[in-house]
Structures are given as C-alpha cells and as structure tokens.
C-alpha cells in the first residue's frame, strides 16, 4: 500500500479493496481526498496514505432521473432515480459519491446534514470491474 503512487489509479484500487484513502502532506499536514501527489499548500511532494474512517455528513445532493448510460444499465431511469451527493468527511475533506438508502423519488425526505457512513459498491467482473464510492445514512 505504501508504494502506490498518489494518483487516481491507486485511489480506485483502494476503493476496490473497500478503503477510502487520501494523501497527507508530510511537510504541512494538509489532507487531500482524492489524493494529490503534490501539495497545493506548501508544494511539498512527500505524501503519505491515510485511510478515512468513512463517516461524514451530506453537504449537497441531487436525485437524477436522466443518467448516463452506465447508470441506465444499472436499472435507473425516470421512474427509479438515483441519488448523488457531496459528503463532508469527518476528517475535513469532501468527496462526491452515490447516496444509498434514501428515496430518490422523495427528495423532500433527504436532508442536508444527515450523518452518513461509507459503502463500497462493486460492479462488473474481471477487466470491467469497478467500485463506486457510496454513502448511506448511519
């Protein structure tokens, strides 16, 4: 884990291992999720991997009725909207993710500030496998 480059490829690999990882600047301590290989505060390049606890709060959301092809393939459509959101992690950084366990047809029941817990959605097999970062109300 230590040797992996601080980039999106590693970030995705970690997600497939049920880990939400960020990079922390060893010089100034700033945390980046998804990881950056260069610190944009002090421009140091010494990073270390940090695993997030996976707890956060909903900062913004949308219920999508007309999605991209890969979401339509998953069975989402106008009658079955899915929810995407911005999640503020306990560690301070924010991530964009799918929001599970809420009703996309009832947006008025989805509240900003709702405490959430991470979930990893594994999809596809072999070369086509991918993991979607998700959260659900805790």
């Amino acid at each position, binding site marked *: 884990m230590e040797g992996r480059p601080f980039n999106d490829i590693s970030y995705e690999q970690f997600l497939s291992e049920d880990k939400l990882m960020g990079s922390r600047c060893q010089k100034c301590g700033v945390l980046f999720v998804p990881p950056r290989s260069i610190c944009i505060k002090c421009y140091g390049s010494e990073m270390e991997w940090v695993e997030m606890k996976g707890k956060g709060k909903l900062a913004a959301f*949308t219920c999508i009725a007309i999605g*991209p092809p890969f979401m339509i393939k998953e069975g989402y459509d106008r009658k079955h909207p899915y929810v995407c959101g911005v999640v503020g992690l306990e560690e301070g950084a924010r991530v964009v993710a799918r929001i599970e366990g809420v009703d996309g047809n009832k*947006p008025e029941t989805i509240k900003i500030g709702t405490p959430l817990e991470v979930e990893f959605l594994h999809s596809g097999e072999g070369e086509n496998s991918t993991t979607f970062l998700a959260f659900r109300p805790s």
Partner: protein
Amino acid sequence: MRGRRKLGRGVAVVGAGMSKFGMFSDKDSKYLFAEAFHEMLSTVDKGIDPKDIDALYLGNFTNDFFVHQGHWGPIISDLLGLTPKPATRTEGACASSALAFREGVFAIASGFYDVVLVGGVEEMSKRSTEEVTQGLAMAASPYEVKAGFTFPGVFGAMATAYFARYGASREHLMNVTIKSHNNARLNPKAQFNVSIRDIMNQRIEKAKNKGEPVPAWRDEKEFLRDPRANPVVAWPMHLYDCCPISDGASCVLLVAEKIAKDFTDNPLYVVGIGQGSGKGLHAKEDLTYFEATRYAAQEAYELSGLKPKDVQIAEVHDCFSIAEILHIEDLGFFKPGEGYKAVEEGLTRLDGSKPINTSGGLKCKGHPVGATGTGQLVEIWKQLRGEAGERQVPIKDLRVGATQSLGGTGGTCTLTILERR
C-alpha cells in the same frame, strides 16, 4: 480603482451577428457560421471588406465528438475566404467563444493585429440525448462523472446547498424560468421564443382538440409544478430549469480602438475582461458560489474601473435556472443569498433595475455551447446600441453591459464588460 492589469491599447466591437439558435437537421456548422457571419457583416455601419480581417479565433467544444472533426479553425477560415490568414480554435467547454473573444482582444491590444473576427459554433442536435450527455460530460470533473453526476445533477446539488443555506426553494427558480421565457418571446433568434403562458395555452388547445382532459393550470407556477408538464431531470432541476440541446453560431468583429470610427460611429469599447478557473465539486471551498466567476469578475472590474452597480444589463450563463441566481450574486449585482429575492421582486426583468438575460438566456435562446459566449455579446451589442427591438430595455442612458460565461461545472469562467461612449 484600477488594478495592475491593463490592455496595451484599446479594442472595440464594431459588428456582431448570430444564426438562429435551434435544432436543425438540415444545417451544419459551416452553414450556421456563414449565417452568423453574414449578419455580422450587415451590422458594420460603414462596411467591412472581409479581406481586411487579420485573424480568426473560433470557440468550439464538442464537434470532435459529435461531428468527428476537431480542426475547425481552418475549416471556418476557408468557409469565409479568409485563408491563408491564421485561424485558432479555443476550447473552454461552454465558455469556448468567450475565450476566443478574449484571445482576440489580446491579439489586438498587443498591437499585432488591427481587425480580428471572433466567434463560436456548435452542432449538437443530430446526436441522441444520451450521446450529448456523454459528450458534455467531457467537461465535468472525472470524479463527478464516476459518481454518476450529470450536468443538471451538479447544478441540482449546488441548488440544494443554496436552498439549505439561504431558505430559497424550487418556487424561486421558477421565477427565473418564467422571466427567461417572457424575454425570449420577444427574441426571434431564440430557440424557444414563447412564454410559459404561450406553452400552457398551446397545451390546453391541443388537449381540447384531441378531446383529452383539459389541464387546469391557473398560472405559470402551477404549470411548472405539474410533473407531467415539467418532469424532474436531476432534482431540483426540472425540464424547465435546463437549457436545451442546440445548434448555432455567433461572431463579433473586433478592431483596434484607433480605427473603430472607420467602421461605425457607434462602436462598443471593451473595457473589462476577466477569466478564472475552478475546481471540481468536491474540492470547492463552498457549494453556493463559483470562485472562478468571482475571480473573473474582480479582474474585469479592476481593468475597467467599474463596479457591479455600474453594469446596467448583463447576459449570464444560465445553463440551469439556479446558475443565473448564483452568477448575479458572484458578479456582485446582489449580495450572496439575495439573488433569488431580487429575481422574485422583478429586479432582473426587462423593465427591472438590473435586466438579466434579455435575450431569453441559454434556457430559451438556446445553448450551442461553443457559440454561447459571443452569442451573449450579440445581445449586449443590440441593447447598448438601442437595436433590440421589442425587448429593448427602457433604461435611460444605457451605456454599460456585461456578459458572463461558465464552462463545464465552473472550470472556466469569464466576464466581459462593454461600454458605449
């Protein structure tokens, strides 16, 4: 107060034209640009010999993907008989031609050229909605795309953050939509030049003719609340919160200020230009504004020595209804959290104190992405010269107008300020 940036020499707009915006199965990029160019030529009061154009800057975003041709600079240059003069394509997603304009201004301000054509073109409607969605997603942050966000989704999410902080609601967004349609009704170039009321009447008429149950909408908001008339796209963005898929082209002619009067007695001077870049949704410090727009605005205000209150009218990038509210706050026209109230009070209407999107905006005029930035300038050109016809704003001594563009989900933002002297 003027800032540290300055233009090497003055630049003026002396002509502006656009094609009709819409969905055209029989018009391609070349045809559309020719239409815009032809209109532009007719607006140069004292005439222009196209052979005097020194260079072309052309904004385009998706033609690589949709038309499988990316090299549009020379194609349009050849179309207009401008070869071998240089042609450069600019890409800034939905702000592509705003960047073309900026590059054109720099090229003249540097002293290198005297006469520059800037414009944009986009050809989108021949593709399926899925393909267009996928193509436009090329301008979003990769993290957003992976999470399943669409463009309306990103703006929908920002709307929920804005609602939660300032107590606004979907009802307030409807005010933007109703106003845009009322303005576009007076714009023959608009893709939807009908008011919401017109659309309601058409639907009622149709239902009557077919012998179907007649909808009982009492006003525009009841129509917009009706999920059959206005279905959700990405909550809280509904169909009537979103700009359409469009084809179109637009262009403006820039010349050095010292020769502007050779072309017209009524040029518009480029007094402010600004551009900023922005981060993806997850990395934004705040979900209720665009840092890049604020930066672009500051740059343009500093260059011009003008303040937000000095800008009398503006075309802003209302790709989604919430965006118009965020932009009029980011440009300093209204305080953060006050934009939706200003719209509700009618301040941004054609007859308001700060008319916004008199053309109907992207929502109704249409949004052929590469053509939008200079398309906005065409509207300001008409308004400042008193040539906007039925939709001419009734402001006395109208001198200063602005256009604001936003590319992607806030990745590229610009502000341009024009002045009539």
